[in-house]
């Protein structure tokens, strides 16, 4: 119960209501029913021995009075909105107060949206809201009314830094119980390695403009569809894909057609809000691969099965497989594996996804490269270190190396690696390698459950679709956000992300896929308030029934 958590106004309103309720009950009790009788002879005699109830006097029937008092207290506790402490997950919300606008009205609107967002999602019995702004300030204690949030937020200092985030996370982590979550309402953050298992979800920071683009999807019909929203419910998209067009949103969807314009102006015809949408993701043309005559035949199968790759003529190729072909094109060569090098000079070779490719090769092959053991491949390793072969330490044989020649980069693979039967992921990995060489931005290759950082221009919801029909959604505020994907191949607006089983198991809380950013709302809240209300109604009913039947002792 959080009676004291009520605001003073709510407290006194409740107290007044309690008093008024009691008074009303007493008034109801002294509202006498008139009954005409043939004679008052005996009634007068008995009435002289019986003192009737009076409004201002002490109640004669204490049991009735206590019954009414109990019913009113139940109503009062219902008003206090209690909850069973032990049940239901909670959410500790950290709001980036530094993101709040400086202007008074904009700032109020910002916090109002924060409050609306929280009200729609619920906090659970132990949930609380903190403002992160240089230091961590409590905005809402558990079970406090969300309406207090705006008033307390108005007292926060303007500006400030987000330096208290990690302290807030530490504090929140200490309060977590099984099933609880931490919601971060602010720009994308990257957690330290030791906090990878923290059940952290990111929510978009409210923006003053009540107009936005949720997603851009390629409809099965072949049309690009813009999912938009606005506070008024009306959105018009202005764009120029050869001829100026104005399209009005229907059910939050704007069908753009087969061509995706680079720039779309979204506007709300009612509120006059206007936003420019620069589309960050566009369909890419397939990578043209020239297959030299001596290239392993397995590459042909690979290219034919990968929709992102097409066979091309020599002159038009983006990438060459084999020795022949244009000298200026990046090249993937398969060597016979005899080129043994001096041992233990290997380093991680390239940016994503190549280091992961190598890591994958290493772990799948069951070989241990001792020098790399200490320096596990991960994103961010400098390319300048990647010039040598990766060598199988147990056999001393070379595996793969990246050659940054004068004309174009060249990736060299040992031919004995190309064993598609032993390694089912190899076609995928080779496809990635070809894309790296072709200069394409590659789909992320990511250990399942680990944070995947995405660059996003627009705030909204990112929806991932898997090949087996699953769908995952994440909220993002831009310009970047961090998501965690379960195992599988995922599509995001035409981009592919491969999430493969991680070597080390993740903490249960982190590994559990989030079905939707739409967090559980009031449906998960405790039924106790309603039980109290029901109890009060039953008590009042019993009281009145007993009273009218004169059964009260």
């Amino acid at each position, binding site marked *: 119960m959080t009676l004291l958590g009520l605001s003073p106004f709510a407290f006194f309103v409740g107290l007044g209501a309690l008093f008024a309720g009691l008074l009303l009950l007493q008034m109801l009790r002294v509202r*006498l*029913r008139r009954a*005409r009788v*043939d*004679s008052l002879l*005996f009634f007068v005699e008995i009435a002289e021995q019986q003192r009737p109830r009076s409004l201002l006097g002490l109640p004669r029937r204490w049991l009735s009075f206590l019954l009414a008092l109990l019913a009113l207290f139940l109503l009062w506790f219902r008003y206090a909105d209690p909850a069973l402490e032990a049940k239901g997950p909670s959410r500790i919300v950290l709001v980036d107060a530094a993101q709040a606008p400086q202007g008074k009205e904009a700032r109020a609107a910002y916090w109002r949206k924060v409050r609306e967002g929280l009200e729609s999602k619920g906090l659970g019995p132990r949930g609380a809201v903190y403002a992160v702004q240089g230091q961590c300030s409590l905005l809402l204690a558990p079970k406090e009314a969300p309406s207090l949030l705006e008033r307390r937020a108005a007292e926060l200092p303007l500006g400030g830094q987000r330096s208290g985030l990690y302290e807030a996370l530490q504090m929140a982590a200490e309060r977590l119980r099984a099933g609880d979550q931490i919601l971060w309402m602010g720009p994308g953050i990257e957690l330290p390695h030791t906090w990878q298992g923290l059940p952290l979800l990111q929510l978009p920071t409210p923006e003053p403009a009540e107009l936005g683009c949720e997603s851009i999807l390629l409809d099965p019909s072949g049309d690009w569809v813009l999912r938009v929203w606005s506070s008024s419910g009306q959105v018009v998209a202005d764009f120029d894909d050869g001829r100026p067009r104005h399209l009005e949103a229907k059910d939050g969807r704007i069908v753009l057609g087969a061509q995706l314009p680079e720039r779309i102006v979204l506007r709300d015809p009612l509120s006059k809000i206007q936003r420019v949408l620069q589309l960050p993701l566009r369909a890419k043309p397939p990578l043209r691969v020239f297959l030299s005559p001596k290239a392993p035949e397995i590459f042909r199968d690979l290219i034919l099965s990968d929709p992102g790759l097409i066979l091309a003529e020599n002159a038009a190729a983006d990438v060459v497989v084999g020795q022949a072909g244009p000298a200026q094109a990046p090249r993937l060569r398969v060597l016979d594996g005899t080129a043994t090098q001096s041992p233990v000079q290997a380093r991680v070779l390239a940016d994503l996804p190549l280091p992961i490719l190598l890591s994958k090769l290493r772990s799948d092959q069951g070989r241990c490269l001792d020098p790399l053991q200490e320096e596990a491949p991960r994103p961010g390793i400098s390319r300048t270190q990647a010039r040598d072969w990766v060598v199988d330490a147990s056999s001393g044989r070379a595996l793969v190396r990246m050659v940054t020649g004068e004309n174009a980069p060249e990736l060299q693979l040992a031919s004995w690696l190309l064993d598609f039967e032993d390694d089912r992921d190899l076609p995928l990995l080779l496809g990635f390698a070809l894309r790296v060489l072709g200069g394409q931005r590659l789909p992320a290759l990511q250990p399942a459950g680990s944070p995947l950082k995405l660059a996003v221009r627009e705030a909204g919801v990112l929806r991932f679709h898997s090949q087996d029909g699953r769908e995952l959604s994440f909220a993002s505020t831009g310009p970047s956000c961090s998501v965690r994907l379960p195992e599988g191949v995922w599509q995001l607006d035409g981009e592919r992300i491969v999430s493969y089983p991680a070597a080390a198991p993740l903490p249960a809380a982190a590994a559990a896929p989030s079905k939707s950013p739409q967090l559980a709302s009031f449906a998960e809240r405790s039924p106790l308030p309603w039980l109290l209300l029901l109890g009060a109604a039953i008590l009042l009913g019993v009281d009145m029934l007993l009273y009218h039947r*004169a059964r009260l002792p």
Partner: protein
Amino acid sequence: MAETDENLPSEELFDAEFLASLDALRIWARMVPAGGRHAEQRSKARGSGVEFTDVRPYSPGDDFRAIDWALFQRLDKFFLRLFLEDEDLPVHFLLDSSRSMAVVGEGQVGPPRMKSALQSVAALAYILLEQGDRVSVQPFADQPGPELPGTSGSRSFRRLLAWLAQLRFGGGTGLVDMLQRFAQRRGRRGLAVIVSDFLDPAGPAAVLGALGKLPHALLLVRIKQPGEEQPQLAGELRLVDCEQESEVTVTVDKSFLQRYREAYMRYDADLRSFASKRRGHYVEIRSDQAVPRQLAQLFRSGALQL
């Protein structure tokens, strides 16, 4: 509160069935119990009756026809034969015509007491008139109403019925006042038949006190409304007296109803005990049952004698 008209048409009050039942009722009333008739009365005056009672010496001026010649032959003195003179019994009906007799209070059921009261007076008067008694009816509410003067003879019964039928009910119950007034009247002693609900606001003690001052033999006929001994009331009530329009605020619950019933039964017992001490009779007539049948039952059981 169900309220009836303040008087009823004669056809409804004294219908053919009621009138037909009176002869049977008279037969039941003739079955005199061992203790004799309640209303039987012999005059102390010696007169021209047929029943010999005594002799006395002749004095000048006495009627020669009353001289006992047989006694003269034996004693050689004149003696007069004395006979008891029969006189008719004056029966005074005091009929409660207050408003409580004409209405049905909340929590009670059945027809109002008015019809039963009028039929009781009619039935008893019929028997008395057939016996040759003299009957008068004094209605009263808070004040005494116009009286039906003493009448006798069976031919007077029709007149009595007509007079009862035109009687109107209303006003408060002034039973104690009526009894006090009646006690002060001068006249021959007779039988006072009081037909009422006996619910005088003055209270039971005042009613009993006033009854005790009556110089007449008493027959108390209490007309009862079904449910009056335990009214179906509950809760916080403002009770309004139908006669006085006075009010009392009560909380009616089980204990209240228990106390009410105790007070009611105590009054019942007091009236019965009083009548018994005065060698009178106390009978109850329920308003929801046929009056002739109830009277017949009372005669048969000996609870009522005339």
